[in-house]
């Protein structure tokens, strides 16, 4: 099948277990959000799926066992947008996006005109065509994120892994980036797996949520089923209210100290999310 299929994925760093046996499936054209507190293994799971760290268990990408693929073939099937990408300050946005074509080239081959066209098209697709000539060091946070996404688009993989793509963006840019990802998913029916710390955005954009805690999946399903009052206490004893927005969408709203007890989850604004 296209997309991702993982069974019993385990990742450990020098004996320290980060992912402790995760089963996971993301179909073609499906958007799944990875949620969970800091240190729950989201990033490690994404790195394992991208082949960037060694992992135990079975991982299939686009129907091929990841372990049996060469690094280059794997990179043609799966693109990872890291949380903290390394952005060489003097490199231009266009040069950076062109790196996405690397997996499609032979070891010593140079990019052809087609690769350069695809790179510039990717920038255009992310409304970043005007940034092509700019050095990465001169880009704002929102511009940077679009350029990093453009590199993943130029990679032309059927699976897109996103690690906190909205971190450190203002709310408008968060929506812009997620809308762009949503557009790509629909156009190319790519499988999207994204770690998102904003639960409200996760609930709104993803088809399904996978909640991780201490390296294990604790819950999986539609946002309404996964984000229950009990489970939200996993997030370092968060004080939140689960609300309904004007369109009936789920809203996870933080509450400051003194307006509720620690670990308390309030339900307001109409009905409790149906379970």
């Amino acid at each position: 099948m296209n997309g991702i299929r993982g069974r019993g994925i385990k990742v450990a760093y020098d004996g320290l277990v980060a992912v402790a046996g995760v089963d996971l499936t993301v179909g073609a054209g499906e958007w799944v959000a990875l949620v969970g507190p800091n240190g729950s293994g989201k990033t490690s799971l994404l790195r394992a799926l991208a082949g960037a760290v060694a992992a135990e268990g079975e991982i299939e990408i686009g129907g091929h066992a990841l372990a049996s693929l060469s690094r280059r073939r794997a990179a043609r099937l799966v693109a990872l947008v890291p949380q903290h990408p390394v952005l060489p300050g003097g490199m231009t946005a266009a040069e950076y996006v062109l790196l996405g074509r690397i997996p499609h080239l032979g070891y010593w081959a140079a990019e052809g005109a087609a690769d350069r066209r695809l790179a510039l098209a990717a920038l255009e697709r992310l409304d970043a065509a005007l940034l092509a000539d700019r050095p990465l060091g001169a880009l704002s946070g929102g511009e940077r994120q679009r350029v990093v996404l453009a590199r993943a688009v130029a990679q032309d993989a059927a699976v897109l892994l996103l690690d906190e793509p909205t971190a450190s963006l203002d709310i408008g840019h968060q929506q812009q980036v997620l809308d762009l990802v949503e557009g790509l998913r629909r156009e190319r029916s790519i499988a999207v797996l994204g770690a998102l710390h904003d639960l409200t955005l996760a609930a709104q954009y993803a088809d399904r949520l996978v909640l991780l805690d201490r390296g294990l999946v604790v819950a999986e399903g539609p946002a309404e089923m996964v984000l229950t009052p009990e489970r939200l206490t996993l997030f370092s004893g968060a004080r939140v209210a689960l609300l309904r927005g004007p369109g009936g969408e789920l809203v996870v709203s933080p509450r400051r100290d003194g307006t509720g007890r620690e670990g308390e989850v309030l339900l307001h604004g109409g009905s409790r999310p149906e379970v």
Partner: protein
Amino acid sequence: MNPEQPLRRVGPLALATALVLLVGALLAGLLVGAVDLAPGRVLAELADRLPWVSVDSGLTEQETAIVWQLRLPRVILAGLVGATLAAAGAAYQGVFRNPLADPYLLGVAAGAGLGATVGIVSASAASPVVPAAAFAGAVVAAALAYALGGVAGGGRAGTTLILGGVAVAAFFTAVQTFVQQRHADTVREVYSWILGRLSTVGWTEVALLAPYAVVSVVVLLLHRRLLDVLAVGEEEAATLGVNAARVRLLVVAAATLGTAGAVAVGGLIGFVGLVVPHAVRLLTGTSYRVILPLSVLGGAAFLMLADLGARSILSPAELPIGVITAFVGGPFFAIVLRSSRQGWGP
């Protein structure tokens, strides 16, 4: 407007400038020397060797020999050494993501220094054993640094390799100093070798270096695209399908081989590998697609001119060429640093 403009590799203007500089340096090297030869006659002599051209230069047989057996090999050797050192420096800077990296980073200088000292002590400064011993010392030192960087863990990451180079350099320098102290009479020869000197006996040195220089430069040029990938770090390179460790091994091996060859025939000529790539970077941008080819041309031109200075400033005596490269390179480097707007930070 050309829609592919932002992705052009080497701009035609930059390429043309570098080529003009290179040809200019080559001609200057041929026209100027201890013996006064009329420039017009030297040019005519050169033109005579072109296919389908026959000109009588009017040079005597002895003067013709000065052009073909003294000046031209010397200029070509300077070009080969400069191109190799500049390419190796650029490659090391890319592979270690470190602006201070130069071709001698992995203990090559110390290894070559020890090899040459042992050669000079056991034979003589003019012996053909010296370049061979310097070459062997350089390769052994870099290989040791590489092995040490792997043992230190971190899978031969940039930093552990550099530290391996520091350890190897310290050890080899200590041994070299010891050998040198035991044979104080050779200090002057060792010292003059260390400062770098390009001297030729006909085309022997050029023929000696050419295979190493060509292989090294070609392999490094073929890696220019992958050096750009390394700029985003080991892990992201992996997600782009690039095995950073393998690229590093190949680049380090090619750069070391070329450097060892250059050191064997020219001694330790400093600053070329540092100054030339940085000047190119400052003028054209940070992509190795551009930096590497232009460093090859610029390095060749720079060393041809430096050699011209070395043999004409105190003519008929010769200055060590390393004195010229450092004398010009030091202040030039300071200017480059001052005016560089883009930092080297991540």
